[in-house]
Every structure is written in structure tokens, then in C-alpha cells.
């Protein structure tokens, strides 16, 4: 017997009799011989639960988690402490094992939680409306650019080269087959993108800028928004670290029309890159071109407050090929984690945590500078920044990594011109001793 399969032989026999066939195999008579396998599947297992634990422990032991090492990696996935209360509520099986709330009377828990997530996301990003979430930050950016194309009818977009390179590649995957032109805006020696480079705002649907950008630098978002709007284009603000908006001005308050990015920092473990949380917020005037699920407030027959999925005429089950997107779910459980995490912090907790993050990174920045390891760019940063390590550091990097110290991310992998540039991240999980150890190791 297998513990997930409840049928006893007697029950199976009784059910077959009810169905009117004498053997389970007869249920598959409709499958023609030319469609059938010629040999049975060859798979490992079955493993008992105990064996499985041993096998999985063995695999997991050959991965270095940030909790066991000094890992100074950010670059789109950030190590943050997740309070047990957040983890606990996210694991309630009534949330975990339900599906999309198609039947609102039986799904008010998920629906209210998503409505709260939409509200907190809109507040965090400084915009009027947020969707129920998307797959990840990169696909959220791609969807934002497609939305701008629909809104403006223009078939080109401009994207800063200081937007996370992996996000730009996802945008290319979504935009190129549709024949939407991508124009790149280079970054300058400050580590930021110069709004003066945006000369074609009358031709493009949107300009996409990330702030803090992939080098950790805050971009002049307000200037981009102003230039975009002069030309009738939209300003799309991407982000990978939403905690920054606990300290710095939100994208919406700086004039962005769409804010989109990754919410993994908000109570979601990095999990080797996924699942994450595609956060997406926009202006209310644009809501009918917004992709993704939306939850709205309404009332029941007796006038009591309740929540439903709404504005679904934008979606593919009604509009099919005319839909705003092919996305038909969200990353609901991750959205729930983000809302619970934000509420756990609260307004002041968010500000204090954001400040601590920045202070840790500034401490590291100063400590490195005192050793002669200079920041690559002068622009202000949040919890990650780019430093220029001594020439030929690459070999030391690998040796340190084998010993459990990951000295940031070598940006040369994404920007061949940035040799010896390392992107370093420090958050509340890095203790001063960890930071001091890194400073000591990269001494020229």
C-alpha cells in the first residue's frame, strides 16, 4: 500500500463493478496502441519517508545556505531574516492547499489576504493600484513593458543598461517575438543612467529604469519620469530590493507610472532563485490594461463586506487571445508572505530595518575604502554597492568561496567591461564580525 492512495483492493473491486469493467486496465482501452509506451517507466524509488529524508538531506548538504556561511550576495535575491510568525502563518495549510479563489464564498481567507497585499504593495510603491502578484520581478518588468505598448500604441521601449541583466533578458524573450524594439540606455561613470540620454521619448512606449539599480545605485527616477511624460511615454520603475522604499522615496512618489519588481526580500526565502514574487503597481487610470489577477471589495446578499476576483474581462479565460496577458494565476502564497512580513514589521519597523540594512552596507563600504578598496561609483546606495577589488582577485574569490566566504558577485560575468568589479550586499543578517572578515580578506 502507498500512503497517498486510499483504495483497498475490495473498494477497487466494488468501484470497478459499479463502473462495469472487470479490470483497471480496461479503463484505458480508448488509448490506441500507437500512443502507448513500448516499455514501462524506469524510475528510482519508491523511497520510504525515512529514506527520502536521508536522500534529500544528502543533496541539501551539498549546498551552502547563507545561514552557514558568510555570503555577501544580493544581485536580485537578498538574505533577510524571516520571523517565525510570518513563516508560521504562511504555512497554514488552508492557504497552502487551496487554489485560485474561483468560489469566493469558500475562499474569503485568500481573497482578503490578497486584497491586503494589493493595498500594502500600492502604499509601498507609492501608486494607486497593485495586482495580486506575478511570477517574479523579471517577468513583471516584461509584462509592464507590454502594458505600456498597449497603452501608447508605440512599438519601441528604452531600457537602461543598469537594469538587472537577467531582467533585461527576460524582457527580450517576451518582447522580441512580438516585434517590439528594445533600445538600450547606457549608464555613466556615476553608476547611474543619465536622463539626458533619453532623446526619443516621443517614439517609445516606455523607459524602464531600475532603482536601486543593478550596481546598487539610486537612479534619478524623477527626471526620467519627467522626460518620459514630456514625450508621452510611460516611466516604468523596476526594482529588486523593495526594502529600500522603507527609507528612500517610492517609485510612484517620484513619478513612475508602473512600478514592478521582485518581492522576495519580503518574507520569502531565496530558494535558489524561486519561487519569488512579481510585484506590480500602476495608476488607477491604467487598470484595465494591467495584467494579472485583481481582488476587489464588494458585499454579500446580506450587505456584509467580502472580496472577489474582479475585472476579469481583462483575462484570458474570457478574452482569450485578446487578453492583457497569458498569466492566469499569481504567486499567491508568496504575496501572502509579503503582506504578513510587512505587517509584522509595521511602518516604523520597516524604516528601522531599512536603515539598518543601509548602515551595514555603509559600514562595509567604509571599511573596504579604508583598506584601499574603493566603491566603483559615487552614487548613493542602499544595501548593496559595487567595489573594485585588487586586480586578479578572481582566484582568491574562488578559494574564499570554497571556505564559505562568498565575496559578492563578479559583475564581469554580466558586464565584460567591469573587470574586478564586485557587487556586495550586506543586510541585517550580516554581523559586524562577518563584515570585518570580508574586509580583511579583500585587502589588496
Amino acid at each position: 500500500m502507498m500512503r497517498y492512495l486510499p483504495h483497498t483492493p475490495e473498494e477497487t473491486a466494488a468501484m470497478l463493478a459499479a463502473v462495469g469493467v472487470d479490470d483497471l486496465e480496461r479503463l484505458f482501452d480508448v488509448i490506441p496502441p500507437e500512443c502507448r509506451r513500448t516499455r514501462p517507466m524506469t524510475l528510482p524509488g519508491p523511497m520510504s519517508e525515512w529514506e527520502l529524508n536521508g536522500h534529500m538531506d544528502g543533496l541539501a548538504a551539498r549546498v551552502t545556505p547563507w545561514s552557514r556561511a558568510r555570503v555577501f550576495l544580493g544581485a536580485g535575491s537578498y538574505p533577510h531574516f524571516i520571523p517565525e510568525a510570518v513563516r508560521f502563518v504562511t504555512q497554514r495549510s488552508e492557504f497552502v492547499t487551496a487554489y485560485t479563489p474561483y468560489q469566493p464564498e469558500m475562499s474569503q481567507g485568500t481573497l482578503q489576504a490578497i486584497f491586503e497585499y494589493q493595498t500594502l504593495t500600492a502604499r509601498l510603491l507609492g501608486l494607486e493600484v497593485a495586482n495580486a502578484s506575478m511570477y517574479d520581478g523579471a517577468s513583471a518588468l516584461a509584462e509592464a513593458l507590454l502594458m505600456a505598448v498597449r497603452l501608447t500604441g508605440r512599438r519601441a521601449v528604452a531600457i537602461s543598461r543598469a537594469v538587472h541583466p537577467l531582467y533585461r533578458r527576460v524582457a527580450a524573450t517576451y518582447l522580441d517575438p512580438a516585434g517590439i524594439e528594445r533600445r538600450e540606455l547606457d549608464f555613466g561613470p556615476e553608476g547611474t543612467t543619465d536622463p539626458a540620454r533619453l532623446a526619443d521619448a516621443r517614439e517609445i512606449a516606455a523607459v524602464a529604469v531600475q532603482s536601486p539599480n543593478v550596481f546598487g545605485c539610486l537612479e534619478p527616477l524623477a527626471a526620467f519620469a519627467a522626460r518620459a511624460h514630456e514625450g508621452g511615454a510611460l516611466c516604468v520603475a523596476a526594482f529588486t530590493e523593495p526594502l529600500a522604499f522603507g527609507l528612500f522615496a517610492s517609485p510612484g512618489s517620484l513619478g513612475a507610472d508602473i512600478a514592478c519588481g521582485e518581492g522576495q526580500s519580503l518574507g520569502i526565502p531565496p530558494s535558489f532563485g524561486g519561487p519569488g514574487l512579481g510585484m506590480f503597481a500602476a495608476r488607477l487610470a491604467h487598470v484595465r490594461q494591467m495584467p494579472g489577477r485583481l481582488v476587489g471589495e464588494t458585499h454579500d446578499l446580506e450587505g456584509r463586506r467580502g472580496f472577489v476576483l474582479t475585472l476579469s474581462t481583462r483575462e484570458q479565460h474570457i478574452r482569450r487571445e485578446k487578453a492583457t496577458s497569458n498569466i492566469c494565476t499569481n504567486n499567491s502564497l508568496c504575496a501572502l508572505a509579503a503582506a504578513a512580513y510587512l505587517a509584522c514589521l509595521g511602518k516604523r519597523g520597516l524604516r528601522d530595518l531599512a536603515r539598518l540594512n543601509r548602515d551595514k552596507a555603509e559600514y562595509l563600504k567604509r571599511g573596504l575604502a579604508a583598506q584601499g578598496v574603493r566603491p566603483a561609483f559615487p552614487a548613493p546606495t542602499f544595501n548593496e554597492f559595487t567595489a573594485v577589488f585588487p586586480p586578479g582577485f578572481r582566484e582568491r574569490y574562488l578559494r574564499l568561496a570554497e571556505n564559505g566566504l562568498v565575496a559578492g558577485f563578479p559583475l564581469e560575468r554580466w558586464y565584460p567591461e567591469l573587470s574586478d568589479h564586485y557587487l556586495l550586499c550586506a543586510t541585517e543578517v550580516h554581523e559586524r564580525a562577518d563584515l570585518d572578515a570580508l574586509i580583511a580578506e579583500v585587502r589588496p
Partner: protein
Amino acid sequence: MNPVQAAAGLVFEEPLLWERGRPGRTGYSLPRRDVEETPVPEALAAEPPEIPELSEVDLVRHYVRLSQWNVAVDTAMYPLGSCTMKYNPKTNERQAALPGFALAHPLLPEALCQGALELIAALECLLAEITGLDAVSLQPGAGAQGELAGMLIFHAFHRRQGRPRSKILVPDTAHGTNPASAALCGYRAVPVASGGQGILEPEAVARLMDEETAGIMITNPNTLGLFEEHVAEIARIVHAKGGLVYGDGANMNAVLGRVDLGRIGVDVLHLNLHKTFATPHGGGGPGAGPVCVTRQLAPFLPVPRVVHREGRFFWSEDFPLSIGKLQAFWGNFGVLVRAYAYILSMGANHLEEVSRLAVLNANYLRVGLRGDYEPAHDRPCMHECVFSDARQRPHGVTTLDIAKRLMDYGFHPPTVYFPLVVPGALMIEPTETESKEMLDLFLAAMAAIAAEAREQPELLREAPRRCLRRRLDEVQAARKPRLTGSPPAP
């Protein structure tokens, strides 16, 4: 046997987070500050957003109360057709939470993440073996993204052949995401009507298939729960015109270990790990939608791909024909861990048994319901069966009423009004993890509802009455959208 599974118990009203919050509380224990403060340049600083402040006990009680307003697989039978709401094994949660998996940074040097890379490579092999296809990418983050990957592969393949195409055939029984995904590649979806028996006819495909058509998207078993028995012939027709065949594997749960997708002529297939491979649906995600292809199409798979050399695993970007990237990183790894653990727990024999019992359960419901409800097609089904409200409509009762009344009996309703080809459809997928006695209770509930429809139809029209809320006004929600809570008082 009393078919009413629902009992009226005490649940609690719960305000919105910001109605519960009080300035001055927190639920968070800030890690110790061991570095000095660095002043923030004034031009950059801003007031933090208005996030409500709750103590830990408030936070926990808030979400535990909300959770109690949900019905889920762990509380009740959830026979949502085409969604495969099977039991989600608890051991898989343990595996995904292991620090080596949950706390692994995606950009770790390869030497520090060999275990994760090995798991990805191993799961790719398992899914290739299960489907009969040659190569797999685990990157797509959901079924719809797997579908998009498939369409992008079609697009890239035809462009590589030097002949981009403009149309794609989509049967009328297809999932709504099929045409939406195709449209993202600039394809115009050409509908193909299914035949009288709910099955695609080769002649209908032959009439529409031409050299402007990129291929066909087939869900098999289809959304009527029927096996597309002419699929191999249809594949030959499509291939003869240079087209490709896309298989929507949403309903793979019916045919594990039985069907060889490669032999059938499917070129690209996506799987929903959150359906067939028992990872939780999470209230609407995250899932995972791996895409499986033939050898011929392997060069087009998303990058990076895991390669194995001299006993070590590496990421490789060296696939110049690739469609590119779909997610920033490597896919929903946390979901992949759960699916991998599920397959190892089952082994080949139990996976075959899964399909046998899923199909047995669906047929048992089909036979048990057809006395009271009108079957869409009265023939043996695969993993799900489809009925309509044709016999209830004369009493002024619709599918929606039946669905809402089922809630009062303590069952999550089936998928309703889908597939579109069946007016008033009730699409029921019990999955293999429901026992005979649970199915018998469901049948008894459905029989009682059919009797109520005849004798006391108002009971259905006024349902549900046992849920936290009565029917909700969806028209009002769409007409005057309220998508966020009120701004906080100044």
C-alpha cells in the same frame, strides 16, 4: 449516510490589517544594531509608507482567522476539474524547507550548490522518462509560462527554418491560456471544432492545416476528460505541412506510465508540477510549468541549462538557438524540490497506480451521477467527467446554483462553465487521493441536490448559507472597483 459534511462551527469575523493595527506596536524583533548610523542625504529620504503596526499575537490571530475562512484540499474534497487538486504530501514541505534548499542564493558559485544543480538535472531526467520526450527545462514558473515557452520554441524553430508562420490551430476545448500564449508570439489562433463525440477529427485538422500554420495545441486528455484518440494521425497531418505539435500536459495525471508523448508525435509539452506532481497550489501559485521537448527542439530550450561534466554540474549558456530566459533565475526551485520528492516517494509503480485510480475515481463519479445529471458525452472518461445543468434548468436552477449548494454540503464545487463547448458545464476531477467513502458522500450530496432542485429549488438559489458569506455581488465589484483599502487617515 448523511451527505452533509459541513458543520456550523464558530468562526470569527476579522477586520482588515490596517483596521487591526495600532501605531506603536510591532511583531518584529530587529537584529542587533552593531554598526553606527550613517545619515541619509536629505534629498533622498522619505517618510516610510503607511504599513499597519501589529503585535505578533495580533498578526498570528489575523492570519489564522483568515485561513479558517478557506476551504482547501486539507479540509475537504476539492474536485476542481482540470486543476488536479490532489493531496499535497507533507514530507515535501520538509524537503523544500531544508536550509540547503530554502536558504540557497541563486548566484552561489557552482562549487557551493552542487546538490541543487544535481537535483535539477535529476528531475529533468525523471520528467523526460515519464513523458517519453528527450529534453526538459524546469525554468517556466507556471503552466501558462510553460505554454509560452512552448510557443516561443515554435516561433524560434520556424524562424530558424527560414519560414516564420502566422497562425496556430487551437481546439475549442483548449484552456483559455492557449490562445493568449500564442498571441504573445504574434500567432493568430484558428479555432478547430471538436467532433460530435468531443474528440478532434483528423479531417477537421487537415482542412485547416497549411504552411502558414505553425502547428497545433492539443490538450490530451482534453478538457472534456476524453482521450484524443486520433492524436497520432493529427500529428502526422501537422508534421506533413512542416508544423509542430504542442501538448498541454495539464491533464497528465490520467496517463502516467501509459502514453509515450514522443511516439504520439508531440514535439513540445508542458507539465504542471502543481497538478500531476502534487505540489501545493498555494491559493493560486506558485506552481511550476516545465517544458519537455524532442531532441530536434532541445537547442531552443530556455537557458541556462545544467550540464554534467566529469562528475560535476555546471550552468551552461552555450545554446545559441535558445529562446532565452523566462525568469530572472532558474525557475521555481522550491516547487521543483517538492515534485522531485514526490516522484521518488512514488516510484514507477505507484505513479502508474495514480493514473489507474484517478481514472477509476472519475468514472465512478460519472456512473454515479448520470442518473441525476446530464453527461456532456456518455462514454468512459479519463481523469475527469463533465456534466451540465440541462436537467435542472427546467426547474429554474443553474450550474452556479448547484455549485453554491455543494458548499452547504461541505464540498468545494467542481469547475463550472468550462469547457466552453458545454453550456452550463460542471467539470469534476476527483483525483486519486479521494477514497471511495468520500466519493460516495459526494455522490449522495449531488443526488440530494438534484432532488432539492426538483422540489425546493429556492434552497439552491439561496445557497450557500453555511459559508462565512452568502453570495457576493460580483457585478458591483466590477462596476465600481475597490482594489485597495482606503488611504489611512491623515
